[in-house]
């Protein structure tokens, strides 16, 4: 028996999350208070200051894909613990907790569907599952998404959100950078377009592999995008980091991003890109029939 029981039902536990569950949301950037429904209609961005809240795969699938068109693939893949990794707690416990807290099976979901009627493969990451880290399952599922795009000759879209490679699978995680790059080399060889949308945050081994290999690279406003995390850089260089360091606008300025796109415009932008960068006919067909082969394909 507890020493006393909570009597009032209106006391809520404090939640420190980027995207709270309550009816009202206070913007962590400008303090603006927005009604939940309004926030949803505004694509989970602050109507006043434009801050893009972190959202998950469910929301991105809803925002981007035509209603009911998304067919999810490889839903049964789950991480095991090949190295029997234990730090403060066992890796198996972290996986179980990740599943319980998020309702997801790992940090990425893949599938096919249409955006404004145009077919594509979508690979969308969830930062809420062990920091969006890439282990065997993320590597394998991303690879399968690239394979689907290559076989069906439909564009691949990746929405990235990750702290990097997953430490608890050690060298196996590191090699997922190589594995996903191999699949993108095959996709490039087949000449099927690959579009990346960088969201907050995308760092480490994911940035240094498939996130930076898009034919066209988009970013949401003010997303943290980099190789090393800001704290690591500060510790190493003992320098104060400049304002806006590693944000989307910084990456645009330095030439690593094609466009910064507001979340409300993502769907439209992707469908325009699909039509402006159509999947060409196979190389052999163009070699024998000229560029006309493309229109007939």
């Amino acid at each position, binding site marked *: 028996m507890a020493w006393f029981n909570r009597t009032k039902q209106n006391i809520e536990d404090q939640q420190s999350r980027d995207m709270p569950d309550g009816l009202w949301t206070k913007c962590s950037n400008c303090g603006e208070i927005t009604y939940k429904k309004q926030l949803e209609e505004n694509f989970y961005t602050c109507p006043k200051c434009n801050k893009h809240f972190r959202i998950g795969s469910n929301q991105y699938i809803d925002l981007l894909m035509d209603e009911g068109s998304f067919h999810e693939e490889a839903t*049964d*893949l*789950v*991480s*095991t613990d*090949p*190295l029997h*990794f*234990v*730090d*403060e707690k066992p890796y198996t416990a972290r996986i179980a907790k990740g599943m319980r807290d998020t309702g997801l*099976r790992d940090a990425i979901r893949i599938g096919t569907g249409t955006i404004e009627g145009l077919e594509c493969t979508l690979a969308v990451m969830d930062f809420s599952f062990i920091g969006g880290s890439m282990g*065997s*399952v993320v*590597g*394998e599922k991303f*690879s399968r998404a690239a394979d689907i795009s290559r076989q069906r000759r439909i564009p691949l879209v990746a929405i990235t959100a990750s702290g990097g*490679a997953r*430490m608890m*699978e*050690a*060298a*196996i*995680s*590191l*090699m*997922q*950078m*190589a*594995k996903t*790059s*191999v*699949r*993108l*080399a*095959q996709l*490039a*060889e087949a000449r099927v377009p690959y579009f990346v949308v960088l969201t907050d945050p995308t760092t480490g*081994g994911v*940035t*240094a*592999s*498939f996130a*930076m*290999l898009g034919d066209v690279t988009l970013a949401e406003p003010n997303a943290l995008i*980099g*190789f*090393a995390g800001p704290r*690591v*850089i500060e510790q*190493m*260089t003992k*320098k104060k*980091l*400049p304002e806006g*360091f*590693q944000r989307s606008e910084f990456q645009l300025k*330095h*030439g*690593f991003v094609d466009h910064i796109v507001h979340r409300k415009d993502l769907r439209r932008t992707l469908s325009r890109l699909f039509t402006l960068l159509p999947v060409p006919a196979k190389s052999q067909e163009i070699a024998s029939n000229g560029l006309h082969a493309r229109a007939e394909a």
Partner: protein
Amino acid sequence: MAKYVLEFERPIFELEEKIAEMRSMSDQLDIGDEIEVLEQKVERLRVSVYEQLTRWQRVQLARHPDRPYTLDYIALICDDFIELHGDRAYGDDKAIVGGLARIDGIELVLIGQQKGHDTKENLERNFGMPNPEGYRKALRLMKLAEKFSLPVLTLIDTQGAYPGIEAEERGQAEAIARNLLEMARLRTPIVNVVIGEGASGGALGIGMGDRLLMMENSWYSVIAPESCSNILWRSWDYKEQAAEALRLTARDLLEMGIADGIIPEPVGGAHRFPAQAAEALKGSVLPAIRELMGLPLEMLIERRHERYASIGVWTTAG
């Protein structure tokens, strides 16, 4: 005598010093037999110490400042070598060296990360932590190799790509990612050898290919044990446990099916006997290069793709 002695090497060194001291007196005294006994003892001690190394001790060996680095191996194994500088876009990164080499009659492109043996050289080499232009220089040299059908040999030895402000401005992540994509499809054989430390994407940035060999006392993983300790244990003090958990030694990576072979080092480590270590490296690398040069290109690339496709462990839930 080595300048830098690790804790577990100390008993060996003490015995060796004693032998040296006795030698200096042996023309006055008849102690040849005793010296011989001690020499046998030091040999046995060396073997037993090196048989029981922990993973953290291997990490320490991999970082030993007297250990041969890329330029040392080049001097020991190449019949000829001309270094080529610069990425043709920004600058020349001294943390990565590369150039045209000949080993036993085989012309090849050799690329490796380069640490310094002392503070001055380390500052010049940025402690072997490359900037983006280092990876871009490496890519330029790999493309050169592809163009002229030369095999590529890369020597990996880095505690990571440099986490600096300018490195981020110039696209550290893009430079590494680009190299991964290009190494995946480079139409010429690539052999990778971890000669010391292989930390994270900074190592992998020159580390993809058809064969991965590791020196016996090298390590390769997703993160250095100290950094792993700092993140997962929220303290720098668990580096030994982190090294164990990461399973980062050559034998571990062989068991995981990631490394293809271990290059044995002389007992006592490459830092004590660099010439022997170089001979062992050459002896392992050359047959691999010769074998890969005999494969049809399409098969070479297909096998490389399969090699990476097979890495990963998962299960399926209902």
